[in-house]
């Protein structure tokens, strides 16, 4: 065996051109597969770093009749479920919030979570220092947990951190423990602190909270022996009792849906990764068949050696082993190079995908990935080496010995096999290229999709208002108005405005609504409409056209009559064939029936939630009349938008020096980031397709045409896997398929013509002499 291995390497060294082509070809296939496996391992297989994560579920609300899914919990609903359920060993809740951290140098905006005291015990996460929350601390004590990252970076790994006090939103909070860094797929990026006051929310009065204001994410740990299905079957009883006891709440009509924790964090990523997995599988198959073809030619040329070995006592097994070792050597070396390639791709992915794929930073190499690469390399070596080796070992011994050193031509069977391989490669390439072309086309269409607003020259950043200093709508309104005025007065600023959530940032809120005329449905049966709280300059800042009525003004204050502006689609939907101006709508859950607001304007439609989807309903409310503790300041400037950061900072210093800026960014970047996952799929698939094209085109034309035929058939079979990734294009788009097939055929034709031309230019006498 060792002698054969040594010989295999010697043969590879003797044919460096063959070896390097074969190794690089396979490295591409193995590298692509390893990269995608590594991502799949991190996202889907490794599991969440919790104790027995398969028993952790998320509990969502759902109102199918209103097409509402994955709805959060309200406080009364959480209490009801916590006390009434029998299938979970415990249930817990959390909700995210921004905090202003003071007392540690410059004031900083940090992200945190408000959790129930049992939250980390339920997940099975233990602090690396100190302890978890105690039940008696919930809603009573100003205590907090920080992450290891927070402890190291902001507290200098202080060994005496336990008992140390930090100020969060101006409230002295005692650190009781340091948690290991937590998975971003669960808590989001940059979550650093946790406090234990989950049932109060500065954005809602107690009355609103108790009327079903839903903002908490609820989780449960299944009791031993209880399955998801069993737990799900107990939900209707809880829903009914909640409805009976809290008929006035907005969420009492919702049903409850359990989703496993793993599925919850990766569910929407699955289609993209299924697409990529199929694609890289195809890339590897193409690479394998390409190298198998090369091996077949190479092994056929060594029939004298095979015959001689058999004359000296080798049996077919010996010969096959020798050649398979040779192909396995190629694949293992390719595996090592592929692993490096994979590390590079994996490192690149978070940069391409942005926040759309919850991957931890830094390159990590897990044992599972190493084992996968090794097995894949060996299997690849076996798969592509076995047939050529077996074919070659059938060589006629006497003919082989007679042939001396003369080059021998392949048998008819081998020709057939090789043509089959080429056809298969072309068919797979056709599928891959067509898929890449469709994704690219989708991406371009989506990138060019009219958003309804102008993101160029606009800068945005978040600001969190601590409840201690800004406890009510009036104080929040005063702060926002002052900030806008200060920024507006800065040189180069065209318009400054505020909004609770920037379009396409992934943040949005929804409010129950109804027309006041007729018989409005009860609050808990009303549809939810996307609602944005804005300051007067918002539409001008984003260049959203005013189609009718007026914009908000400073007169639309907290004490003034409630007003609302509708998007064009909303106006058509709610007031078909009517003038919506002056009409009234009910909003929210206040007073048990919502508050009446008058329509004062209609503006153009905006794709604010997803670039790929229109919003049926979108409302705009004046910030003073619907304010929360977190908002974004947006600045349209004639200068470099990044310059706005210093203006806003200066303005904040004049108003409140302890107010940090959070997540500053240009709106262009935010819009581009919303395409992150599509960019990832399209980018990787495009890169693989480009490399595959290079591998395949150097083949004869007949098998190429056969392969194109099979490829077209295969696209009709596999197109459904792509549908979820596409935008405004069918997976069976005839124009794109025709272009792909023609492009591939032309490339193959050119690749055939060049060697053919070279062959015809050879002097026949010279050729005979070389024989």
């Amino acid at each position, binding site marked *: 065996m060792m002698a054969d291995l040594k010989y295999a390497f010697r043969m590879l060294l003797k044919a460096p051109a063959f070896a390097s082509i074969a190794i690089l070809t396979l490295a591409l296939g193995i590298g692509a597969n390893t990269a995608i496996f590594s991502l799949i391992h991190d996202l889907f297989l490794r599991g969440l770093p919790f104790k027995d994560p398969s028993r952790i579920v998320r509990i969502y609300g759902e109102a199918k009749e209103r097409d509402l899914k994955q709805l959060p919990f309200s406080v009364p609903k959480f209490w009801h479920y916590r006390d009434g359920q029998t299938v979970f060993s415990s249930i817990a809740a959390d909700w995210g919030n921004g905090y202003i951290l003071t007392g540690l140098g410059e004031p900083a905006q940090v992200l945190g979570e408000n959790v129930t005291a049992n939250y980390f015990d339920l997940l099975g996460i233990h602090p690396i220092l100190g302890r978890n929350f105690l039940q008696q601390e919930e809603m009573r004590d100003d205590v907090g947990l920080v992450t290891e990252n927070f402890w190291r970076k902001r507290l200098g790994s202080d060994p005496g951190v336990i008992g140390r006090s930090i100020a969060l939103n101006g409230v002295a909070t005692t650190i009781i423990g340091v948690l290991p860094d937590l998975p971003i797929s669960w808590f989001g990026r940059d979550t650093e602190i946790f406090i234990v006051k989950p049932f109060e929310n500065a954005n809602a009065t107690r009355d609103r909270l108790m009327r079903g204001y839903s903002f908490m994410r609820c989780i449960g740990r299944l009791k031993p022996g209880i399955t998801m299905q069993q737990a799900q079957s107990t939900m209707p009883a809880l829903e009914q009792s909640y409805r009976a006891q809290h008929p006035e709440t907005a969420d009492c009509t919702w049903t409850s849906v359990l989703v496993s924790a793993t599925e919850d964090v990766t569910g929407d990523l699955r289609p993209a990764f299924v697409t990529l997995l199929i694609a890289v599988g195809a890339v590897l198959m193409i690479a394998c068949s390409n190298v198998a073809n090369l091996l077949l030619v190479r092994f056929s040329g060594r029939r004298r050696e095979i015959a001689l070995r058999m004359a000296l006592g080798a049996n077919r097994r010996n010969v096959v082993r020798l050649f398979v070792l040779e192909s396995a050597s190629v694949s293992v070396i390719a595996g090592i190079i592929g692993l490096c390639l994979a590390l590079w791709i994996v490192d690149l992915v978070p940069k391409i995908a942005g926040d759309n794929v919850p991957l931890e930073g830094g390159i990590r190499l897990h044992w599972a990935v190493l084992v996968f690469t090794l097995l894949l390399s060996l299997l690849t070596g076996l798969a592509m080496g076995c047939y050529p080796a077996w074919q070659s070992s059938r060589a006629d011994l006497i003919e082989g010995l007679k042939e*001396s050193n003369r080059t021998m031509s392949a048998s008819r069977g081998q020709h057939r096999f090789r043509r089959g391989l080429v056809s298969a490669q072309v068919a797979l390439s056709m599928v891959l290229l067509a898929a890449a072309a469709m994704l690219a086309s989708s991406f371009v269409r989506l990138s060019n999709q009219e958003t309804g607003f102008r993101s160029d020259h606009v800068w945005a950043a978040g600001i969190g208002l601590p409840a201690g200093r800004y406890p009510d709508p009036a104080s929040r309104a005063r702060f926002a108005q002052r900030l806008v005025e200060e920024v507006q007065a800065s040189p180069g600023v065209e318009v400054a405005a505020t909004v609770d959530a920037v379009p396409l940032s992934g943040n949005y809120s929804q409010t129950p609504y109804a027309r006041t005329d007729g018989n409005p449905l009860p609050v808990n049966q009303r549809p939810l409409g996307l609602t944005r709280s804005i300051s007067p300059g918002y539409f001008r800042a984003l260049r959203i056209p005013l189609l009718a009525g007026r914009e908000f003004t400073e007169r639309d204050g907290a004490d003034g009559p409630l007003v609302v502006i509708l998007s064009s689609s909303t106006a058509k939907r709610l007031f078909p064939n009517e003038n919506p101006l002056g009409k009234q709508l009910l909003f929210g859950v206040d007073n048990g029936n919502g508050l009446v607001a008058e329509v004062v304007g209609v503006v153009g439609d905006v794709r604010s939630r997803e670039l790929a989807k229109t919003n049926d309903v979108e409302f705009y409310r004046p910030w003073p009349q619907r304010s929360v503790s977190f908002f974004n300041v947006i600045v349209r400037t004639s200068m470099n938008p990044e310059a706005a950061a210093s203006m806003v900072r200066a303005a904040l210093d004049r108003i409140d020096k302890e107010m940090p800026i959070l997540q500053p960014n240009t709106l262009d970047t935010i819009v581009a980031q919303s395409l992150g996952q599509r960019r990832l799929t399209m980018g990787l698939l495009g890169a693989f397709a480009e490399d595959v094209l290079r591998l395949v085109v150097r083949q004869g034309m007949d098998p190429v045409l056969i392969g194109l035929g099979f490829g077209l058939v295969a696209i009709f079979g596999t197109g459904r896997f792509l549908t979820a990734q596409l935008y405004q294009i069918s997976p069976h788009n005839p124009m794109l398929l025709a272009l792909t097939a023609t492009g591939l055929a032309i490339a193959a034709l050119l690749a055939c013509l060049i060697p053919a031309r070279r062959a015809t230019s050879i002097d026949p006498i010279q050729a005979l002499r070389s024989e």
Partner: protein
Amino acid sequence: MIRLHNIERSYPLGRGQMFYVLRDIDLDIAAGDFVSVMGPSGAGKSTLLHILGMHDHGWTGEYFFDETAVHLLKAKERATLRNEQVGFVFQQYHLLDDLTVYENLDIPLSYRHYSKGERAALVADALDRFQIVGKKDLYPRQLSGGQQQLVGVARAIIASPKLLLADEPTGNLHSSQGEEIMELFRRLNEEGVTIVQVTHSEKNASYGKRIIQLRDGWIV
């Protein structure tokens, strides 16, 4: 040791016609014999040698090797018998170009049931016996034709075969190198190895104990 009875080898020509390479061959070769097979090109000499060496399976008739009925053996059994009993020397030397002299000698042993230690000892013996110790790390392309054929003979007898078959062993050598090889054959024969060689050379044939003439597939 060898008894051939009514051996025939033919190839189909199409339309039911056959082309006979060997016809009705009856031949006895005793242990320790040194037979030279002669005849014009196309007489069937090499075919006869490949049948004796059990490389060729497409013949009819009876072939006994030390009372073993080769004609009744399956291909795998014939290969085993060949590996144990037969060594082959080729006109083209047929050394493996990418193996050193040492590795070329080791190759036949690696396909038999020898331990690593036994193989090393046998190769060392052969290198010593054929006085090519100094060449053991060289590749065939670094040797002269005579030296390559010397390695070819050493390789053929390294597993101690009873029968040594040689197909024009000096065909590619100049006369002095040819004589050396033939002297080597004579010594091996004296040591008890049965040898069957195919040759065009009267002089080489004279090293043998008897000559068989083949013409158009018939023994004449």
